[in-house]
């Protein structure tokens, strides 16, 4: 008797378990790999919230978000209104875990496409799995130029990469007329990030008719940077480009200030200079410093669609969107749009639809010209922003259409 009940229960459970499989035609499953635990857990959690917001925009009608594909409708209309579902995997911030998780997503979770993984090193391993298995991988936020130089067929990246960012710096410098910008010095920590920045500057300086007059690599976490600053001052550059993390950025600022050396244009490549601690602790001393970024509070407030999405995110998490998670959210919107246009979950159809993506700036939630991939899978319409520190926040100075205060940028740079 008991056995019969158990057998009956088991049959019922099996039936229940089989039901979602039956309903699967109505659900499109995407695997998202992010560092949800470990040192980058807080960043990962913010990205997860932003992706859940993207799923909400796709699945539920949001007519107020004009222009954004799939916002007004519910689900994916060309797949019979199928629901969009994202399955999250935790990479722990480790390349090998990212790789294993990508395999698990494809084998067990039956996802039709992958996205992730924030850190370039993890994106590299996870996307290799997708490439081997012939499944589309869309990356929204990793900026290492190498990722789209591997000749991959299934890899697409919506964010601009570090080379684009450095090229943007050169384009921005072209708009400065008040002071000369021909002679460039690069001060960088001798790690992957710093050296890649230097290489990109070297590449684009020539193209934009500029000359590198000083190449100053330094060891991160030095007890003193006076020798570096003296070398910089002796080269008399028009522009000093910094690639430094927070502690060194603080020390450079204080050392330059105390020795009363001010490069006419002080331009940072993101990293330490946008750290909230940097802005809070030495911000008052370094007013007018310029930095490259992908996101700015004033841009988010100025672009109507963006402002609404930011408000939705704030209502959901209590925080503002930032450059990391906004890019992840944009990546997910692009992927959903491609799957909808493909009209099927066949990998090759999705890949073709992704390759044919052509969105303009009204159809996206980032301060870019749009999304259109080249044959390497890199979005060619993305761009960075150049911001200037005013008071306790950064304000956009480039591209000019996002610049609210026409008196910016403040050049030449001077210590207060």
């Amino acid at each position, binding site marked *: 008797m008991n056995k019969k009940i158990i057998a009956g229960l088991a049959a019922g459970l099996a039936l229940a378990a089989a039901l979602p499989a039956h309903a699967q035609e109505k659900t499109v499953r995407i695997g998202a790999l992010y560092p949800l635990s470990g040192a980058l857990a807080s960043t990962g959690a913010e990205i997860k919230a932003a992706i859940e917001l993207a799923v909400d925009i796709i699945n539920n009608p949001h007519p107020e978000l004009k222009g954004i594909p799939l916002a007004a409708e519910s689900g994916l209309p060309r797949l019979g209104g199928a629901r969009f579902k994202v399955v999250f995997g935790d990479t722990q911030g480790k390349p090998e875990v990212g790789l294993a998780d990508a395999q698990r997503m494809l084998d067990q979770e039956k996802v039709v496409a992958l996205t992730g993984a924030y850190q370039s090193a993890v994106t590299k391993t996870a996307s290799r799995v997708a490439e081997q298995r012939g499944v589309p991988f869309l990356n929204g936020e990793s900026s290492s130029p190498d990722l789209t130089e591997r000749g991959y067929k299934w890899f697409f990246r919506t964010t601009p990469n570090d080379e684009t960012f450095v090229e943007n710096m050169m384009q921005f410098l072209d708009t400065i007329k008040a002071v000369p910008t021909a002679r460039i010095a690069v001060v960088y920590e*001798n790690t992957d990030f710093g050296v890649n920045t230097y290489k990109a500057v070297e590449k684009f300086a020539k193209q934009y008719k500029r000359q590198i007059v000083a190449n*100053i*690599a*330094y*060891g991160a*976490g*030095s*007890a*003193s*940077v*006076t*020798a*570096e600053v*003296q*070398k910089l001052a002796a080269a008399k550059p028009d522009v000093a480009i910094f690639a430094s993390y*927070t*502690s060194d950025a*603080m*020390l450079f600022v*204080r*050392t330059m200030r*105390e*020795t*009363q*050396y001010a490069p006419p244009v002080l331009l940072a490549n993101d990293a330490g200079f946008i*750290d909230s*601690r*940097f802005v809070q*602790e*030495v911000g*008052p*001393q370094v007013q007018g410093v310029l930095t490259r970024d992908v996101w700015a509070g004033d841009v988010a407030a100025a672009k109507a669609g963006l402002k609404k999405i930011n408000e939705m995110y704030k209502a959901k998490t209590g925080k503002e969107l930032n450059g990391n998670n906004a890019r992840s959210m944009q990546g997910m919107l692009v992927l959903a749009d491609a799957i909808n246009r493909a009209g099927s979950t066949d990998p090759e159809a999705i890949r073709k639809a992704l390759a044919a993506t052509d969105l303009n700036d009204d159809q996206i939630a980032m301060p870019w010209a749009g999304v259109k991939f080249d044959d390497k899978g890199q979005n060619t319409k993305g761009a960075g922003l150049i911001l200037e520190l005013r008071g306790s926040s950064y304000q956009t100075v480039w591209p000019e259409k996002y610049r609210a205060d026409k008196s910016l940028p403040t050049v030449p740079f001077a210590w207060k």
Partner: protein
Amino acid sequence: MIEALTAGLFNGLIYAAVAVGLALIWGITDVINFAHGEFLMLGMYAAYWLYTLGRIDPTLSAPLVAVALAFFGFMVYALVIRRLQRGPAMAIILATFGLGLVLRQLAFIFFSPDYRSLPDTLLSGSVSLAGMSLGRPQVVTGLVALAVVAALFVLVYRTRWGHALQAVAEDRQVAALVGIPPDRVNAQVWMLGSAAVGLAGALLTTFFYVFPSVGTVFGLLAFVAVCMGGFGSLPGACIAGIAIGLIEAMTGYLAAPALKTVSVYILFILVLWYRPRGLFGRW
């Protein structure tokens, strides 16, 4: 060239300021304090919080911080070092190493891993010297370091109390036989050495960032200076500190700043190779 050397000289004096406390404790009590960098970190946080919460400028709070660190040094000696002095030498080394780890992790917990930095202090600004522009905080810290080394030198080598210290350093038991209490002398040395590093830490905050691991930035350099200068020699530690600053400046000027550390450690290896007891070492 001259400018690079002058800046290097002041950097060197700053390294000397950090190193001198370590040299003193090592020279007299025969203990290598591997938590020295963390003592410095505590001094820096003390000065940082006194400024942030109490609005006391680091220049003024430096003596207070020195006194606080002296007390801390006494506690460390009384509670940790004295108990282990009769055990194997390795026990003390490991104990100071462990103490350093504990202090650093506590700083991470209580002060968070945020980088902090003081706004303008009384010392902020620059000094013009023969057409060169030097940071005033660095110059003042360097001069104070020189004064501290000179004062400690007089204290240790020219006073009656100093002779008692040296007697303990030479032979604990004989010193005890002639009526010098070694424990008390050792405690005094720990207080003095800790006060010196506290003073250096407070002054460092006028131009350096504060961070729970900041001790490792200076601690290793101080250790190198002390080894290079000669075991327990105060002038040796000072001169070696200056030498490190000058070598760094010359490497940065003639070659590349990224090679600074390389040249310092090559010099260190050479000194140990040809003169294992250090430049001014007695043993």
